[in-house]
């Protein structure tokens, strides 16, 4: 561990793949090449076995540097393992850098069984670099500091970026769509084509409609669709008994706004929707508004930058006439670019200030359509990660980094996670940063657009994967 | 010595581990100095825990009259119990805090009455505490009948103790049954409720009933059918408990907290709380 009086001795954890880099390390031993004892090696079958959670756990427990070693692309004993590693860690390093954590603390290196010299050189270089950086203070669980080690002064949080003022914009009325929805719903229910309808029903106040199921045509008259219907309905049809009361095996009509339809299509792709038993009507959307104390405050951020006006899936579409995307295409990544432009310290201060507000209420997890695990790693102790609350700052980072990573490549940027956050943390920025990276490194990809398209993190492309992985 | 706060345990030592059945072991616990951790009444429970593994509520299966140690008969079901069964050996430490819960009313409603104990499977553990208490104050109580059933001979908890001591006690009848036929078993074959109906008890008794929920459901039906009133029947609820002091909200059913107002309930009280147990 680290000790203040003596010169700083970094703790480096190295994950080495059994077939190449571990053998390289062995050969470095046999050829008596020396590298600092700070490096401690954990053997894994393949570099693709290293889960980002292991790296975060190592940092959390006090490691100052983590390096993942694997076979050279093309040499992998399991033929494709390291292609996934290359993409996964390129995105992880970029995300952690985005959150202000020094990217020199983490490395991905290809070392073959014969490259003992390279192994020793890399370990020497890496240890030196981490020693220069100093102890890991930004991604560490302070509860793991040894007794009597003065805790880093967590100064008051600094304001870095002013909060985004909601986009003021007039919102076209969708009352015509509401009428058509009610008509279609009544007809389909009456004809028995569907057994229930999933839409919104009027709350006890005009600004508070709630997602609701309608089982009988007589109930349709209190169905409503207006600018307050911001909820994404896709997750309600997910086949999850623990969510939906008794198992429903009838057929359902669901109304989907354009952004919701991408999420729904992604759930279809992940076999969580019983398609034969679902009738989909895509409905136009002019944008939804944020409500505070039953009063309109302004358009939701996700609608402000919305470019999705088409439905990738739907048996019928009820269009909103002359509907044009609200802003130009790159407004979507404007805030992400603004943060990227900040210095590493400012980026860290920004996320430290935002994430410190998180109360781990799980709203972002339970509302996110692709966060659909039956039992989340954070709430079952089979995975040794279960934690219900952010006892320390590290757990705040850990929860949001792991969540962003589990939905990487599957998140359709529907903006629900930021909408539902009681503490207004701009969580969508983490997912959008990953989306921006995926688009840059591996080519434009919109989750939920096309069911057949291979997903970025479970596929690879031999010729253009290289430049991302060379950090 | 009472700890400053009921949530903080004291360190105990497991002096003995007795293998009762393939999946039930009895852990004998004393405090560091070797004597009983704290006093308790029959039916009360204690929180045992191994730091880093977990903490859970277990009923104390020895009687208050036993001042030397406390026994806990534990079935291997969850994370903590698995650790205790597989990894613990005699002499290991364990933390213990309690006593929790309202005990069986041995000095009030049960005093002077004939008592009929009905137990199923591992649920004989809480009953054993009351039975030993009754045996140690034998004259305070009337006739004692013990009806106990389990899946198989191997699953009969405290079988040797029942055979050697319980059956020899004055004015005490012991009826044992197992679910499925077994060649070295000459006793009754069948479920507890059916055996109960076969024997047919007179209704001048107080019933102490513990067992898995389905068994309780069927035995209650038989009891009511034979004329017993709900006020005569006591049982325990088995729910998840965390703090044990009625604060953490986990065992809250209706306006009652099972860890404070129970786990011992009179069955008529159970009708006044929502059927969520």
């Amino acid at each position, binding site marked *: 561990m680290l000790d203040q009086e003596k010169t700083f001795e970094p703790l480096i954890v190295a994950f080495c793949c059994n077939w190449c880099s571990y053998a390289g390390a062995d050969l470095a031993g046999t050829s008596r090449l020396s590298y600092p004892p700070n490096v401690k090696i954990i053997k894994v079958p393949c570099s693709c076995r290293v889960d980002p959670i292991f790296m975060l756990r190592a940092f959390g427990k006090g490691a100052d540097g983590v390096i993942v070693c694997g076979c050279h692309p093309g040499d992998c004993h399991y033929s494709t393992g390291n292609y996934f590693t290359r993409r996964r860690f390129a995105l992880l390093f970029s995300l952690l850098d985005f959150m202000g954590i020094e990217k020199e603390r983490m490395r991905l290196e290809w070392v073959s069984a014969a490259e003992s010299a390279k192994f020793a050189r890399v370990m020497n270089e890496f240890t030196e670099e981490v020693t220069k950086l100093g102890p890991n203070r930004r991604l560490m669980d302070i509860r793991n500091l040894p007794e009597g080690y003065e805790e880093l002064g967590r100064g008051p949080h600094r304001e870095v970026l002013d909060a985004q003022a909601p986009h003021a914009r007039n919102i076209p009325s969708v009352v015509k769509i509401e009428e058509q929805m009610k008509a279609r719903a009544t007809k389909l229910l009456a004809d028995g084509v569907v057994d229930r309808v999933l839409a919104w029903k009027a709350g006890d106040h005009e600004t508070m409609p709630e997602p609701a199921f309608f089982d009988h045509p007589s109930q349709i008259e209190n169905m409503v669709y207006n600018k307050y219907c911001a909820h994404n309905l896709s997750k309600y049809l997910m086949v999850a008994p623990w969510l939906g009361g008794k198992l429903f095996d009838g057929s359902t009509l669901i109304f989907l706004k354009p952004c919701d339809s991408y999420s729904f299509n992604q759930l279809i792709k992940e076999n969580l929707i019983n398609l034969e038993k679902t009738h989909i009507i895509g409905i136009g959307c002019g944008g939804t508004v944020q409500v505070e104390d039953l009063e309109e405050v302004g358009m939701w951020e996700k609608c402000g930058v919305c470019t999705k006006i088409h439905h990738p899936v739907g048996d019928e579409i009820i269009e909103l006439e002359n509907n044009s995307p609200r802003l130009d295409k790159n407004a979507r990544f404007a805030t992400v670019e603004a943060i990227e432009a900040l210095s590493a310290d400012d980026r860290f201060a920004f996320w430290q200030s935002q994430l410190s507000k998180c109360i781990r209420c799980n709203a972002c997890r339970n509302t996110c359509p692709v966060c659909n695990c039956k039992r989340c790693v954070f709430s079952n102790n*089979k995975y040794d990660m279960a934690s219900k609350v952010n006892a320390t700052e590290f757990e705040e980072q850990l929860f949001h980094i792991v969540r962003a990573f589990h939905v990487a490549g599957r998140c359709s940027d529907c903006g629900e996670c930021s909408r539902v956050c009681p503490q207004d943390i701009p969580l969508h920025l983490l997912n959008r940063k990953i989306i921006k990276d995926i688009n840059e490194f591996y080519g434009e990809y919109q989750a939920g657009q096309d069911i057949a398209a291979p997903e970025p993190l479970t596929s690879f492309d031999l010729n253009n994967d290289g430049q991302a992985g060379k950090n | 010595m009472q700890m400053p706060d009921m949530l903080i345990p004291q360190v105990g030592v497991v002096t003995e581990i007795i293998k009762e059945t393939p999946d039930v072991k009895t852990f004998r616990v004393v405090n560091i100095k070797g004597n009983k951790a704290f006093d308790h009444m029959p039916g009360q429970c204690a929180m045992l825990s191994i730091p880093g593994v977990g903490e859970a509520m277990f009923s104390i299966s020895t009687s208050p009259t036993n001042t030397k140690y406390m026994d806990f008969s534990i079935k291997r079901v969850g994370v903590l119990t698995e650790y205790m069964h597989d990894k613990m050996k005699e002499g290991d430490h364990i933390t213990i805090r309690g006593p929790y819960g309202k005990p069986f009313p041995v000095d009030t409603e049960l005093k002077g009455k004939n008592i009929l104990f009905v137990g199923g499977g591992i649920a004989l553990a809480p009953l054993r505490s009351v039975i030993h208490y009754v045996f140690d104050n034998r004259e305070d109580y009337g006739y004692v009948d013990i009806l106990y059933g389990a899946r198989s001979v191997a699953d009969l908890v405290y079988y040797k103790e029942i055979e050697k001591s319980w059956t020899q006690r004055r004015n005490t009848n012991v009826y044992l049954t197992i679910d499925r036929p077994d060649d070295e078993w000459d006793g009754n074959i069948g479920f507890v409720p059916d055996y109960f109906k076969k024997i047919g008890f007179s209704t001048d008794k107080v019933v102490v009933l513990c067992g898995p929920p389905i068994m309780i459901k069927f035995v209650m039906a038989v009891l009511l059918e034979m004329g017993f009133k709900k006020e005569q029947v006591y049982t325990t609820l088995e729910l998840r408990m965390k703090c044990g002091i009625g604060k953490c909200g986990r065992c809250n059913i209706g306006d009652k907290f099972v860890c404070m107002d129970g786990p011992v309930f009179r069955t008529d009280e159970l009708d006044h709380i929502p059927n969520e147990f």
Partner: protein
Amino acid sequence: MEKIGFFVCHCGSNIKATVDPNVVLDGVRSIPGIVVAEQYPYMCAKTGQNMIADAIKTNGLTGIVIAACSPRMHEATFRKVAEAAGLNPYMVEIANIREHVSWIHKNKEEGSQKAVALAKAAIAKVKLNAPLFPEENSVIKRALVIGGGIAGIQAALDIAEAGYEVDLVESSPSIGGKMAQLDKTFPTLDCSACILTPKMVDAASHDKINIMTYSEVEKVEGFVGNFTVTVRKKARSVCMEKCTGCGDCWNKCPVKNIPLEFDLGLQNRKAIYIPFAQALPLVPVIDREHCIMMKSGKCGLCQTVCQPGAIEFDQEDELVTQKYGAVVTATGFETINLDKFGEYAYNDSKDVITSFEFERITHGAGPTGGELKRLSDGRKPKSVTFIQCVGSRDISGRGKPYCSKICCMYTAKHAVLIKDKYPDVNVNVFYIDMRTPGKAYDEFYRRGVEEYGVKYIKGQVGKVVDKGNCLTISAVDLLDNVKMELETDMVILATAIQPVPSAKPLASMLSASIDTNNFMTEAHAKLRPVESPTAGVFLAGAGQGPKDIPETVGQAGAAAAKVIGLLSKDVLLSNPCTAMVDINACNGCSLCAPVCPYGAISYGPATVNDHGLKTIERVSHINQALCQGCGACVVVCPSGAMDLQGFSNKQLLAEVDALC
């Protein structure tokens, strides 16, 4: 009850020198569960193994950790010891405190602390190990040898002799490989064809060996004991059965000016040809790029001339798919390209040739009929100069860093051959070091110097200039430390050798690892030189590293022995460290299937009891036979439903915790 045995090995002084075993023992003794903590100078020796076996039996250990050398060395040994003592072999963990600690850190105190940390990690892991039982799957009693040179032929013969079917695949039209191109072989100078052709005939005529020439491996699936290989038999346009090898066709063929690859382009061949006289199978091949009939459809002379009517212009490539239990790679070598070595003027002067080209020139059936002639003007050279290590031991990055091993001997051979046939020609050899380590090698080289008067100059050549009627070499004589100029008539470059280009794609098909020079990597440099780390793949010949014929034949025999050992088993134990899925937590979201390189994951309905709520749900299913345990699916699974036996999430997290 959990009882762990911990054993520290001194490995003689390898570990003891820089890691204090007592510090390691004291560091772990108090960890809960440690029942036995002992040390011994040689844990892997019989006495060490018995010590472990006794400890297991007497204390009823449930798991052992050995802090010693790399698991890649003795994990199997210690697993066998555990199994013999009645403990499941997968309840054994190794802390690598030799290669990763004692050999690389000089400071004993730091080394010992690191050894303690690695020991704690291994103990944390073994506590979470579960007994694993390898599955049994059948072994196909058939072997595939890729590469028809001497290595492939020898391996095929040895395997066939043991009674197993062998398919021998060769990309060129005939087997024989590079050895067929040689004239004489060192150090005995016996004629290469004389010792090779009998073996080729044995192989061709052996009933258990099925030779597929002019064919290449296209696709490999499966794993040890159950490889499924697809071979593309390229269309020869000649029917193998009918052709008698009479030669009428290639004599008649009008197309003459195609450089013969077998002769490195020094001679020409027809459009229909056999590479060399003793080619086996003695069946010509039509070179479809140059055959007029194939290009414009206006010839067909060979067809008219062929009495048995064996010519079939419309013959198609044939894809042969076959199951094999083992694969031997014997892809051989080729000389490197010399474009980057301008100083030797190889591309500018016809009289600067490579040793291989010289081999063809001295060969009786070669372009000059065996006569020593300058290729520029056909004159008999009065002086011949050899230059060693061209492209070998090269640190400039143009050539190869390694020594090509065979050049010293074949240059000594060439020098002796010249002096023997033309005593008046003086022969000079520029060398850096003479490496003649084999049996009777050095004596042969010294004979060349003393009896035949070959002049060896220790020094490197700076430049070769072609003056038209002669060549001038400017070099440095390191012994006399003097610059020198030398006029000579012919310069022969002992060129470095490298694996054939087809080795790299073949390796990835077999998912066998290769090193940065594209030589096949052996499972262990000293202890398992003829096996690839990929189970079921064996290595023979120069494809694994530069070597001469005796070594190649020896290695081919060794590889064959390993194959025979594998095929003799009826059942193979598969790797039990495979993935497993917890159907209660599986969402059926099919994120895992796309990342499985072995297609081991499928989906289907299963009844799931989630704490009393029984439902039928679509869940993932692992085919344990195909799964190789890489773990790609485990990391892609967000809910942690997928886990890997032997490297589970909990285990690896426990190791991380123990290290930090």
